[in-house]
């Protein structure tokens, strides 16, 4: 057994153990912290699967931004935990659930083991059409060209998520800003950290988006890093969440899907079909679309973390 294989097995066991912790940990807060660790470990697994684009996404969104969201919620729900004492299901239910889950996991594991080692693949086709797009990173080509319809609709899902989260505001707060008013001074330590990190993070985010055309990276990962910077600035109270009725905010939220949709429809005129790119111009158009997607992701994720409006709007 090679060193690498030993490391793989160790990593697999660690991931499983931390996952088990998030399910069985006695407190919800501890479970949530476990989940954040889990997200980071998972991105290592993705590196071992040679899926660096996914690893970046998992680290930035799966571990990072989701972690902020869940830890924030766990902190606010600490009192709620007390009220669930005595609501835990009976032993019989647990046993039944455990049997069902073992069954599902075992069937899945069996099928995974049965999958052929050299499985069917679309990699050759993806590489064959890659030159038309002018891109060097096939994952970006799948997201923005071959299966662009998935991506554009998933961007609409993000807009709907924002509508859904905002819809949970009280009527009088509609149009106002999320989060408490900025009463306190900025937290000095966190403010220092944010001031140091934000410029670096912004450069890294833009860099990851830009190289995403040819190397691992892209609009999702770059946008998520920019989003993280905004979230840190808000946590340090150096800035506060904008009013949800601000036109610029809504414009930024829909810019990504809107530009993508517009480019897709323009394809009918210039390239003979919806979501087709004219030959030779594909790469600049793709980068143009991606730039707006970065903007939208960078704004959407912090707004989803910030939650529904909690202050009356200023007129």
């Amino acid at each position: 057994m090679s060193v690498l294989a030993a490391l793989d097995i160790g990593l697999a066991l660690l991931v499983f153990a931390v996952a088990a912790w998030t399910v069985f940990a006695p407190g919800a807060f501890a479970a949530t912290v476990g989940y954040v660790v889990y997200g980071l470990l998972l991105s290592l697994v993705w590196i071992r699967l040679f899926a660096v684009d996914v690893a970046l996404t998992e680290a930035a969104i799966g571990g990072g931004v989701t972690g902020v969201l869940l830890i924030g919620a766990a902190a606010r729900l600490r009192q709620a935990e007390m009220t669930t004492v005595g609501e835990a299901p009976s032993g019989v239910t647990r046993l039944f659930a455990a049997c069902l889950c073992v069954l599902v996991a075992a069937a899945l594991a069996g099928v995974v083991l049965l999958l052929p080692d050299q499985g069917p693949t679309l990699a050759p086709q993806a590489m064959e059409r890659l030159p038309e797009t002018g891109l060097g990173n096939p994952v970006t080509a799948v997201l923005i060209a071959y299966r662009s319809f998935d991506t554009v609709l998933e961007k609409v899902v993000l807009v709907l998520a924002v509508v859904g989260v905002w819809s949970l505001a009280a009527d009088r707060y509609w149009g106002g800003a999320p989060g408490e008013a900025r009463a306190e001074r900025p937290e000095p330590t966190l403010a220092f950290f944010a001031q140091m990190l934000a410029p670096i993070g912004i450069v890294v985010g833009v860099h990851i988006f830009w190289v995403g055309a040819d190397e691992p990276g892209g609009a999702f990962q770059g946008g998520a890093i920019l989003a993280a910077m905004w979230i840190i600035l808000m946590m340090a109270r150096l800035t506060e969440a904008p009013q949800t009725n601000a036109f610029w905010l809504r414009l930024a939220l829909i810019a990504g899907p809107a530009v993508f949709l517009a480019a897709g429809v323009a394809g009918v005129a210039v390239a003979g079909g919806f979501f087709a790119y004219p030959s030779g111009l594909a790469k600049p158009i793709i980068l143009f679309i991606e730039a707006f997607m970065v903007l939208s992701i960078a704004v959407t994720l912090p707004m989803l973390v910030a939650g529904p409006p909690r202050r009356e709007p200023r007129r």
Partner: protein
Amino acid sequence: MSEGASAIAATAGGSLLPLAILVPATGVLLSFLLGGRQAQRIAFGLMPVQFVIAIGIASFVWRSGEPVVYLLGGYVPPLGIALRADGFSAVMLVTASLIMPAAGLYAWVNFSTPRGSTERRGPLVVWTLLQAVQAALSLIFLGGDLFNLYVALELLTFAAVPLVCLDGRPETLAAALRYLMFALFGALFYLLGVALLYGAYGTLDIVLLSERIRAEPAVWLAAGLMTAGLLAKTALFPLHLWLPPAHANAPAAASAVLSGLVVKGSFFLIVRLWFNVLPALPGAVPGTILATLGSAAILVGSTLALRQERLKLMIAYSTVAQIGYLFLMFPLGSGPWAADAFSGGVMQALSHAFAKAAMFLSAGLIAESLGHDRIAGLGGAGRAMPITFLALGLGGLSLMGLPPSGGFAAKWLLMKASIAAGQWVWAAVMLAGGLLAGGYLYRALAPALSGEPPNMKAAPRRSREGVALALALAAVLLAFAPPPFFAFLQIGCPAASVALR
């Protein structure tokens, strides 16, 4: 095989297919951006466009007698994504494009933004999300790629959940959260099946998959996981617990859309899965399981409906029961009776969509006019608002399966097929379900038609009563669907067309 070859090339009229999705999606973005009064204007402006597109697609399918196909970006599957419209998709599209404006007209009164006033929460959310439901349903009806359909399922979830808890009362929040949990469970299990199918065959295109699929462990597991996930979203017994509180507590216009259309979205995908993706699997055992669950849903749902004290909850439980009928078509999917069974199932989906939308809108009017929707307090209300109760009653006709109604046509076809197949038990369940439906409807309607008219807060507007009545009449009119309509339904359905030959 020639069918497969043609099904992965674009056909005439194909460009209408992306439009059916892009038009409402654009509406969502614009409504959210411009907000306030504009949101409502955009939603209403686009509804006729949507109807024209749906009719256009249906007429192309009709003329060619074959599925209409579009390849997005010019990338041919398996690399790219195809959209396909067959007979079933076309009628569902038209149905959705009729029920959405009805719900919209009804919601106009509750969710309008007067000129010059600032944007309010309810209207913006409702108008944005109704369009999102439309976009998601269009994609579900037209999607030709299983992962693309996963995105559609998520779109539908995000569009539907916030509608449930629009009023922010604790019980609606709990109902919405529960709904979201079931929907997430459903989407994840569906996605897991998608992963396995891609791992086994290297494509997610429905037509390509149907040619490659063989009965092997990965396919069985994928089929099981995807079906279980979709059943959770369709609220088939025993995964129905989330539905009644969610549907009964949403604003009436949203309830009509949720009960009439949204549950049909995931049902549509189950039909796609078993009839279009997996016809190669022996369907007898899974079909019997599905129909058994369906039968249980009919009996349990109807019985619970009989015991409800609120009108909207009764109607919501009746949805649980009526969903059950949809699944009686599955064990009858092969044999000379398959075409009848398929038509019966589709007919049930259509007639229930119209009838249930009519009933929820009527119940909403009753609740608004009386200030409550307690069944015990409905005495004499039928005299005060006869049109509303006529709509409620005509909708109920379809639920019971009495002629003339679309529900009758559906149940007749299903019964004919199950008797022809020698599977009497389904016919017996349908009869029992019809009697129970008669029971709960009688319980709500009989007191309303006698006694002194109660004090009303306000009489319902004629226009809104008219909307509910029009939907109920549509459910009745389906009874008179001519034979070419049933031939149209079979276009592009491999299992049923085999049976027709």
